[in-house]
């Protein structure tokens, strides 16, 4: 009912929009999105900035609820009433739209050259030949720490794994703080903030991920089991009853100042800045020896594509080129600290914590979460199984080897990479 109403409303707006064209000679572009939270940023900052530079093109940001977005968008695309610009979910959901012919090929769009292959990987065909969405933002994994606690206990920011565990030991021995705020109840924390956070350092980022997709490496290989071995060692440093600790519990533990280290995703920055009363810092996942190349999970999260049925394709392409520009990146990244522009041009950000996160791109190599591209298409679903097994490993109910074996067996049952 709600979806229907929404569809009707949006249909109404698009008709009105077309009517507007006839009268004012202006082109009106509608943006489909699930990011209702960003409405004010689009209305007050992004759209005025674009319209000032491109007279004659009007842009309307028309978001729907996140849970309804995919269904509503599908219905609108089928009915031909969808907006000109479509906010893209990463990987398979957008790929499906492209295959159905709903999204236009943007490989030759001016501005696409501003993005690295990793940034574009979320919105490409499996062979990497066509791109169909302009990457907008990514989230970076790392650890956020309580600077006051570190100063009080005289702990240096750890760079290597040994220093990391030495720091955890010191915090635990002191007893004032819970060394690390993470729970396994919601499962995904263990996988996303744990396995996918520290893993790239072991499997060497994109190299390992590509080899896994090609079938040259297996999840039972040393590089893929080792992150589980490290996760298993985290157990004693988590708070009492971490097995029943949920994601909001972990956030609260950290922002209330009861925990010293928080395995994080950069999307936390906005919330933590408003809630935490202490100084915060961040460090990338520690490497084995000082001076080793570091790898970070710089996960593509949101992009924007062109509705293949759009009547104003040229105006929409102008807009997308602007989305691919440094101008857009600067405004967007500053309005939403923690959602980083994927643009290769460096973006100036005011938030110190966000700056810290994004500075790792300079010294570390970026990769995306290993399970997202191609590998989570079958049953059992690798991403979901990774959630379950990561939690099992931390809970101590599965050994790292057993967990890796289960994941690989599940993957083998449906994934047969061409050799």
């Amino acid at each position, binding site marked *: 009912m709600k979806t229907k109403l929404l569809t009707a409303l949006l249909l109404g707006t698009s008709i009105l929009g077309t009517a507007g064209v006839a009268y004012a000679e202006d082109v009106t572009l509608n943006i489909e999105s699930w990011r209702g939270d960003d409405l004010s940023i689009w209305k007050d900052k992004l759209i005025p900035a674009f319209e000032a530079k491109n007279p004659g093109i009007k842009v309307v940001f028309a978001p729907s609820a996140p849970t309804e977005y995919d269904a509503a968008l599908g219905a609108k695309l089928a009915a031909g009433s969808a907006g000109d610009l479509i906010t893209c979910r990463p990987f398979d959901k957008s790929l499906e739209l492209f295959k159905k012919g709903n999204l236009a090929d943007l490989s030759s769009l001016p501005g696409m050259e501003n993005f690295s292959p990793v940034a574009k990987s979320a919105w490409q065909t499996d062979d990497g030949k066509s791109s169909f969405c302009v990457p907008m933002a990514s989230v970076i994994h790392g650890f956020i720490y309580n600077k006051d606690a570190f100063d009080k206990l005289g702990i240096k920011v750890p760079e290597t794994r040994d220093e990391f565990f030495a720091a955890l030991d010191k915090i635990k021995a002191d007893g004032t703080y819970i060394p690390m705020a993470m729970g396994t109840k919601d499962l995904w924390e263990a996988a996303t903030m744990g396995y996918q956070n520290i893993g790239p350092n072991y499997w060497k980022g994109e190299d390992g991920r590509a080899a896994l997709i090609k079938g040259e490496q297996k999840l039972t290989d040393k590089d893929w089991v080792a992150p589980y071995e490290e996760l298993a060692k985290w157990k004693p440093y988590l708070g009492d*009853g971490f*097995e029943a600790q949920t994601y909001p519990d972990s956030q609260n533990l950290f922002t209330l100042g009861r925990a010293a280290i928080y395995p994080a995703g950069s999307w936390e920055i906005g919330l933590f800045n408003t809630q935490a009363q202490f100084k915060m810092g961040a460090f990338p996942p520690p490497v084995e020896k000082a001076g080793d190349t570091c790898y970070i999970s710089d996960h593509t999260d949101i992009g924007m594509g062109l509705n293949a049925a759009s009547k104003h394709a040229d105006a929409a392409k102008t807009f997308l080129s602007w989305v691919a520009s440094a101008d857009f990146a600067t405004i967007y990244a500053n309005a939403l600290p923690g959602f980083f522009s994927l643009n290769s041009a460096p973006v100036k950000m005011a938030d110190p914590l966000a700056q810290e996160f994004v500075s790792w791109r300079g010294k570390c190599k970026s990769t995306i979460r290993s399970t997202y591209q191609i590998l989570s298409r079958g*049953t059992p679903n690798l991403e979901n199984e990774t959630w379950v097994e990561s939690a*099992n490993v931390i809970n101590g109910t599965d050994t790292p080897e057993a967990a890796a074996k289960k994941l690989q067996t599940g993957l083998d049952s449906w994934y047969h990479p061409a050799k």
Partner: protein
Amino acid sequence: MAADIRPKRPFRWHIAIFLAPAVLVYTAIMILPLAGTLQLSLFRNIDQHQVFVGLGNFRTLFGDPNWSVNFWNALRNNVWFFIIHMLVQNPIGVLLAALLSSPKLRFSAFYRTAIFVPTILSFVIVGFAWKLILSPLWGVAPHLLDFVGLKSLFTPWLGKEQYALTALSLVSVWQFIGIPMMLIYAALLSIPDEVIEAAECDGITGMSQFWKIKLPLILPSIGIISILTFVGNFNAFDLIYTAQGALAGPNYSTDILGTFLYRAFFGFQLQVGDPNMGATIATIMFLIILGGVCVYLFLIQTRLRRYQF
């Protein structure tokens, strides 16, 4: 039937007309979707086309270890969920009803209401409230146990594989205890006073009166409650979903048929929904419930009738 006595009467159209709204509505919202589900389970989506595969989906569900392991795990958990309800909810419900119907009890209306209130609460509220109560960080459970010196008994129940399902079953018992209590209470009140008085004349009072007179008389109600519990438990989903999420953690230890169906049908996170396999699971759930209800109707209820007046 009256119609048999007066055979000359014309066909009574008004019966059909009066029945029509209910039949139409029931068909539209119950029978058709059910038939649709059964039909969906016989097809499979191959290259964007629905292809008839006969019982192929059922063979996958029972034969492919990727599905069957999860299915049997969900079924086992569901049976345990049901056993806890039968062993805890219904006996306690009967006990509460017996206490409430005692004429000596004061404030019985208050107790009755208080015990029934959780039943009308939303699952989301119950799931969330109990998650907080049992939380090792901010919950009252650890503090209350500490208060009586039993802190050592506390563990994060919802996060441990061996306890999570039992804990959630007990939460569900807490929520629904009001239903058996109310039904039994009504049954107890409807026992004629003459029967009780006759029993008293024969010297049967107190506990033995309950066991020998009242319990046999409320057995049909207990039967109805058992079947309601059975149907409710094998259709359960909401509480597990709100408390543990769709993956029914830890390690699928709280996965019941409802959550298994949900994941298969609608998908979860990166898992894409598969309506055909979902319908297959739904069909099996339907058959399980149908089987259970048939066993009750044909084997148990026919025997229960003998005890009735």
